[in-house]
């Protein structure tokens, strides 16, 4: 039974770590994006037209 439990623990552990790492990266990027947009705003004196939803490079838009 210990082997079965170990296998399922590994599965859920890796899955949660993977999902958590994606959310964590996303939070960091969100912060970076806001900072960059503030920098651009500061230089332009106007707000950036790009929202998070349009988070694409020109090629991907």
């Amino acid at each position: 039974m210990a082997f079965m439990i170990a296998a399922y623990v590994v599965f859920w552990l890796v899955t949660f770590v993977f999902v958590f790492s994606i959310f964590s990266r996303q939070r960091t990027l969100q912060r970076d994006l806001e900072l960059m947009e503030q920098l651009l705003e500061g230089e332009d004196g106007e707000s950036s037209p790009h929202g998070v939803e349009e988070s694409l490079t020109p090629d991907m838009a």
Partner: protein
Amino acid sequence: MLRSDRWVAILLAVTTVLMLVAIVLVFGVAPDPVNLQTPVERFSQRIFYFHVPTWWIGFLAFFVAAGSGVFYLITRRERWDVISLSSVEIGIAFTTMGLVTGSIWAKPTWNTWWTWDPRLTTAAIGWLMYIGYLMLRGAIDSPERRARFAAVFAIVAFLSVPINFMAIRWWRTIHPVVIGSGSADAQGNFALGPTISMVFFYCLFAFTVLYVALMALRVRTERLARRVEYIKQQVMFR
């Protein structure tokens, strides 16, 4: 909340429910295979319901990565590179789970954590190839070159998938073949009865939805990462 966020949230909720139902089916509904005599064998057999789907998702993810690589080389659109990278990352996560859960199953069944059997060897080589994919990406600075090289690598690395899949059918191996007939030397084999089949195919379906949910999440993060990189370049070169 953005529309895409709402869809990802719904997808994650659906996936959570499907995975919980899978757990209930595996531990509450699936019967013990009749040919397995000892409790240790019977308990470890239940690893199969998650072990095989992890490999299915790994193979599916690498197939999507190779297909995206082909589309990238044809169109040179960055979105295909995003899909390819995201899919490879998910594929590596799932094949890692597949290798580890397989090893845990092997200990009580084969009395060893690892053996250089054709299936295990091809699985390890395939896994290492995709680790190489990530290393290759990390070694190239130019985004266009990185995407091009990675696309070619993803296509070539995909050759490991059919070899891995067929290894237990082509060569003499101790790894069981659950669907179809395998080597006479296989140890730990069992027959797929109707209830075991139902639970197994349900798990395959639930894992496929999990893959779609993870792809939606990972692709969104990668797009965001590239947007941040793009704006950084704009800020730096002003």
